[in-house]
């Protein structure tokens, strides 16, 4: 069971990472609080469900949804967010909160109130036998594989390529990067579109496990913010470690606490306590990190 739960927490952590990576880049490089990040996740999942329905194939729909969401993200950046960079954080929060409300209503108008169901690709509906005789859902393993692959890709992109260099330069000192002649506007659009594509990937991969519905972005957005605060704003590595930590605490809390409480309390009280304590644990973790390392675990700015 421990192995199974570890895989569960890894799977959840990696999906959180996809969201947090985009968020941390936008926040770190552009100094922009983007609450609408969760809406891009929702839009990505809806586009995925639509394309999967239209093409009949999960794997064809996936790149389509990624590209489409990246375009939506780029359009959002060019049309609205660009004007907000110079404003203070409160204005950004208010404006992007408005984007959440608009996005939710738009999705309601286009796709309706009912949540959409997305099925995993046909080869991945059953369990697989892991070494050690443990059965595990093959689709969740696929999620883990995709998550690890994207994490490696991002690592390569950020540390080994020119774009990555610009991103790191922007994150650690924006003014200096501009002074050195970096085309910051284009960089911002590219980063934002990349963040949107990562959102769409998370939305598309989680769609078959959760449900594609209005408001799905808000719940997970809060966790993504916790992740980047723990990891250090602007740091991909921090987002990765933070996401795995949050995934671990959340899943283990949900799995182990009710068992521990069941010995002490009635089943109902134990089931009430378990999830609430485990969600508290995430914030305790965040508070502890903030107390010991106010810049997060891997601060991008020296």
């Amino acid at each position, binding site marked *: *069971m421990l192995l*199974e*739960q570890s895989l*569960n927490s890894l*799977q*959840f952590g990696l999906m959180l990472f996809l969201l947090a990576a985009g968020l941390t880049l936008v926040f770190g490089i552009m100094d922009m609080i983007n609450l609408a990040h969760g809406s891009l996740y929702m839009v990505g999942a809806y586009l995925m469900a639509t394309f999967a329905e239209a093409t009949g194939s999960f794997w064809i729909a996936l790149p389509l949804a990624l590209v489409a969401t990246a375009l939506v993200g780029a359009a959002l950046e060019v049309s609205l967010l660009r004007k907000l960079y110079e404003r203070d954080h409160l204005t950004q929060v208010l404006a992007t909160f408005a984007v959440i409300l608009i996005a939710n209503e738009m999705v309601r108008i286009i796709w309706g*109130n*009912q*949540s959409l*169901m997305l099925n*995993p690709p046909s080869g991945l*509906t*059953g*369990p697989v036998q892991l070494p050690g005789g443990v*059965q*595990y*859902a*093959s*689709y*969740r393993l696929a999620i883990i594989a995709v998550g690890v692959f994207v994490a490696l890709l991002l690592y390569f992109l950020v540390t080994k390529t020119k774009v990555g260099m610009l991103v790191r330069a922007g994150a650690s000192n924006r003014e200096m990067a501009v002074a050195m002649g970096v085309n910051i506007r284009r960089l911002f659009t590219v980063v934002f579109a990349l963040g949107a594509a990562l959102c769409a990937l998370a939305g598309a991969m989680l769609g*078959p*496990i*959760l*449900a594609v*519905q*209005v*408001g799905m972005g808000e719940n997970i957005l809060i966790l993504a913010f916790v992740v980047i605060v723990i990891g250090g704003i602007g740091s991909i590595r921090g987002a990765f470690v933070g996401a795995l930590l949050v995934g671990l605490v959340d*899943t283990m809390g*949900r*799995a182990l606490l*009710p*068992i521990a409480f*069941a010995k002490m309390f009635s*089943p*109902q009280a134990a*089931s*009430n306590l378990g*999830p609430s304590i485990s969600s508290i644990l995430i914030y305790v973790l965040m508070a502890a990190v903030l107390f010991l390392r106010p810049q997060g675990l891997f601060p991008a700015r020296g």
Partner: protein
Amino acid sequence: MKTKSAVLAAAALFACNVQAANELKIGYLSTLSGPAGAIGVEIRDGFNLALKMAGGKLGGLPTEVVFADDTLNPETGKQLAERLIKRDRVNLMTGVVFSNVMLAAWPTIQAGNVFYIAPNSTPTRISGEGCNPRFVSASWPNEGYHEAAGHYAKSKGYKNAYLIAPNYPAGKDATSGFKRGFGGTISAEVYTKLNQLDYSAELAQIRAAKPAALYAFLPGGMGINFIKQFVAAGLSFEVPLVVPGFVSDQDIVRAVGEPMLGIFDTAHWSYDLDNDANRKFVAAFEKEYNRIPSVFAEQGYTTALLIDTAVRAVKGKIEDEKGFHKALMAAPARFKSPRGDWKFAHNGTPVQDYYLRVLAKDNQGRIVNKKIGTVMNDHVDFWAKECKMK
């Protein structure tokens, strides 16, 4: 210009007042969005079908239905109930899907002095000690399905059972009902967050506990995800799954498909029940909506027929509390419901049969619930004895 519009407004107002005496205005509070919204839609479609077949008139009165979506938020449900009663001035209410919304909205409905006909949720707290002449249920007492499922699990000789249900009033009614019917050892009782969608942590625990049977009451989107993930985790080969009909009817079959075949459940109605009213209902529903009806659709349909019969019996005088209550209680004998013969217990909950069903393919290759036996005959709500009402 101003005078003209004022005159028009006054005329409109007057027209409303005149109509109110011979028009039925129904406040329909339901959960129509989110992962659990499909249940609300099923009930509503069943209700609308009966209304349409009656030519838009229930009890012979032109009927207007005001819909409101509580989004499975009890606080919203309470506010909408208030709005339906105070602003829209509805004559009676129906529609609520979830028990937490029902319990939140019920004091408001009571204070508004309107009748409420339950097409679904009938919480023990309202049907038992808290019974009220203005509350009648056209569906089932909350524990009915689960008690039947408990009886079935007992008849299969399972040594123990593992229970999983959402943490809300109907979830607790579910485990309480199952335990009464089953009477055996409960290996664990797990309550998940209402509308939880990822069950990976719970499934790992179930695998570790190795129960003889698993009883899962997870309606709507929760059930869709639970059963998909249960199958994906390979647990369907390890643990027999027993469910109430809410977790295995068409709303879930449409989403999950083949892996549902062979699952046993209990319900008060089945697609293939052998009576004329049912054949008429099923044919009309399939023609109207191009899909197979579920238990929820039957409940909505029967609710509309019940209102129709009772309103007709009192000739529209539903303000007369005693008279209308009496008409409602007598109504089941006066119309044919797709579920067959039923009557009311004194607490306003149905006394009816509960069937054992299995998911199998019909002759067109569609996956449907087939009745294979009767688990409880003329079952009376266990909590009716707590009701002091006569």
